[in-house]
């Protein structure tokens, strides 16, 4: 990377509720300040299909819940210089990990087959309506991102406050190691 190019930022949403991205948007006009000094090259808020090479900073929301998440996390890690786990799901698997107390089969049955799952007509006994194709396969347990790939910085919170996200990005852009602990806490 040369001085001529602007820093390339990305955000990604894995197994989470997108709340961290909502909080990111809560930076409001400060987003414009960031956009004036850096390019946002990939994000749920940006219309790019393929995660690009040579990204400087990626904020990763969500836990690793499916095979696809593992694949994405690995690809992103290999294309990103600084990876930030954003929010409790990425850090601890958080709410997503509540399914870890059950087997994947039970979780799918609860979602697709049991009364109240919304499926009409109700599936016949012994038959599951859980999708067999197109939907990524769930891993046995949802895990924090750093159990799958190396993570450089951590941004706790459910979701992390916009101030904390802003602080982390601007510190990184200024070439400093962010320590957002004065702004964050698990679960907040």
């Amino acid at each position: 990377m040369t001085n001529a190019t602007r820093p390339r930022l990305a955000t990604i949403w894995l197994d989470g509720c997108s709340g961290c991205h909502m909080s990111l948007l809560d930076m409001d006009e400060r987003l414009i300040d960031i956009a004036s000094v850096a390019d946002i090259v990939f994000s749920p808020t940006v219309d790019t299909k393929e995660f690009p090479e040579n990204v400087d900073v990626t904020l990763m929301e969500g836990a690793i819940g499916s095979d696809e998440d593992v694949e994405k996390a690995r690809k992103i890690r290999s294309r990103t210089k600084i990876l930030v786990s954003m929010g409790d799901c990425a850090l601890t698997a958080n709410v997503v990990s509540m399914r870890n107390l059950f087997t994947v089969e039970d979780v799918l049955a609860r979602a697709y087959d049991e009364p109240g799952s919304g499926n009409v007509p109700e599936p016949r006994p012994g038959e599951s309506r859980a999708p067999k194709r197109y939907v990524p396969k769930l891993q046995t347990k949802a895990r924090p991102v750093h159990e799958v790939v190396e993570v450089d910085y951590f941004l706790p919170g459910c979701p992390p406050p916009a101030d904390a996200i802003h602080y982390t990005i601007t510190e990184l852009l200024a070439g400093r190691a962010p320590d957002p602990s004065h702004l964050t806490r698990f679960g907040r």
Partner: protein
Amino acid sequence: MTPDELSQLSVEERERQQGFEHCLNVCTAASCLSSGAEEVKKGLTTAVKEKGLREKCRIRGAGCMGLCSSGPLVALDPEDVLYQHVGVDDVPEIVESLDTQPVPRLLCDTTIPFFQRQKKIVLENSGRIDPERIEDYIAVGGYRSLARVLTEMDPDEVVQEIVNSGLRGRGGAGYPTGLKWGTVAKATGAEKYVICNADEGDPGAFMDRAVLESDPHRVLEGMTIAAYAVGATQGYIYVRAEYPLAIKRLRQAIKQAQRLGLQGDRIYETPFRFTVDIRLGAGAFVCGEETALIASIEGGRGLPRPRPPYPANHGLWGCPTLINNVETFANVAAILREGAGWFSSIGTEKSKGTKVFSLAGPLSRYGLIEVPMGISLREIVFDIAGGLPDGKSFKAVQTGGPSGGCIPARHLDTSVDYESLRELGAIMGSGGMIVMDESSNMVDVARFFMEFCMTESCGKCVPCRVGTYQMHTLLDRIYNRQGTKRDLELLSELCEVVRETSLCGLGQTAPNPVNSTLRYFRDEYEERLVSDGVRGPSGDPLAQVEMTP
């Protein structure tokens, strides 16, 4: 009973025993029993009876003879013949040959180093007396030290004698025994207690069991002398429920001692009184830890508590309490009989006397041995045990069980003493010694011991409760070729935290098997690591990016 009456009893018993022309000692310790010694003993008894030799031959169930790999063993006295691998079918031949030449095919060579290189103090009577008869113990000089102590010595003198002997705790840590006795003797309390720790929980160790099964009175005598020295009137033996034979023999021994006035009020008709009761453990390794053991005797969960205060001042029911292990007490009568100078002439400068080891693994000969401190590991493995058979090659020797470490071949010339073993990252421990050949994987061995610590953790303190679980998870990962370099780093970090912050010895030493295998066999860990290929760019992440727009 008076000391004179004891001498009288001793003489009478010896005369009675000399009345027999032959005495056949059948090893009836656990290992020989499980390979059929009881049947052999029954067979011999019947055969002798049928032949009308009952007046001439004594069949005696004796304690452990040590060479468990050749059991069942039968020793002939006074012929000094040892038979090995004896089966019921061999009985007629043995009885037939009593007045002629011994049966050649059963003979065990007693000139081999296994027998010649040992030095027996704790096991001096083991395999030579009937552990179920107090008279047998008295005949070989038993309870004479106690008589001398009670009638000729002050408690202070007894403590001093133990101090001078240089005896150190045989439970593993090697704390000077005399110092401990002195502390309890000086402590003030309405009541004082003496506890014998027979909760031998180290997997692969059976020294204490053998001593209790082979020579229970020896332990009782040692405890009684200790009680006199520190001023206690009540003693407890905390023994594992998993040792039914040891429990049975101890119960018997206590009854016999009471019958002869060697326990209870006015022992040897002096004002001194002392009673020993048995308390059964119930399967909790942590109860080997002093404060947990006390909690268990008090009837509760075996949870350790922070020390200080130490049990010597604040122990059982808050009273000053002396806790020593079986082997420590088993040394006491001999020290007082032969003198501190004699004892301290054996061993090294800082580690005096002998140590009993239970030796296991792929060895030509294994079993229970007693060796002078300062002997080298090589002498134990290659002389006493006769090396590894079938062309197997030596890889490591594990001492100290779950609190100890694995010592590789290049340190085989290390002297067996407390300090040298600790320097190698192992410990003396209570005496389990397991030899491993090339077929043992050291990550697996570390995982085995960690699994042990994890299931035996009492759960009171966080680092041990969760740390041993996490270390086991990481070891399991690495062993199954799923661990990364980061997992190995994490394992080392946890080793440090658990060692430094755990409440009691169990947690503090739980990382030892990992640390020692990492130290000597690191390649076995590293060759199993997988590269996950998802680490970030190496080095400082910030340095990777030039952010200034």
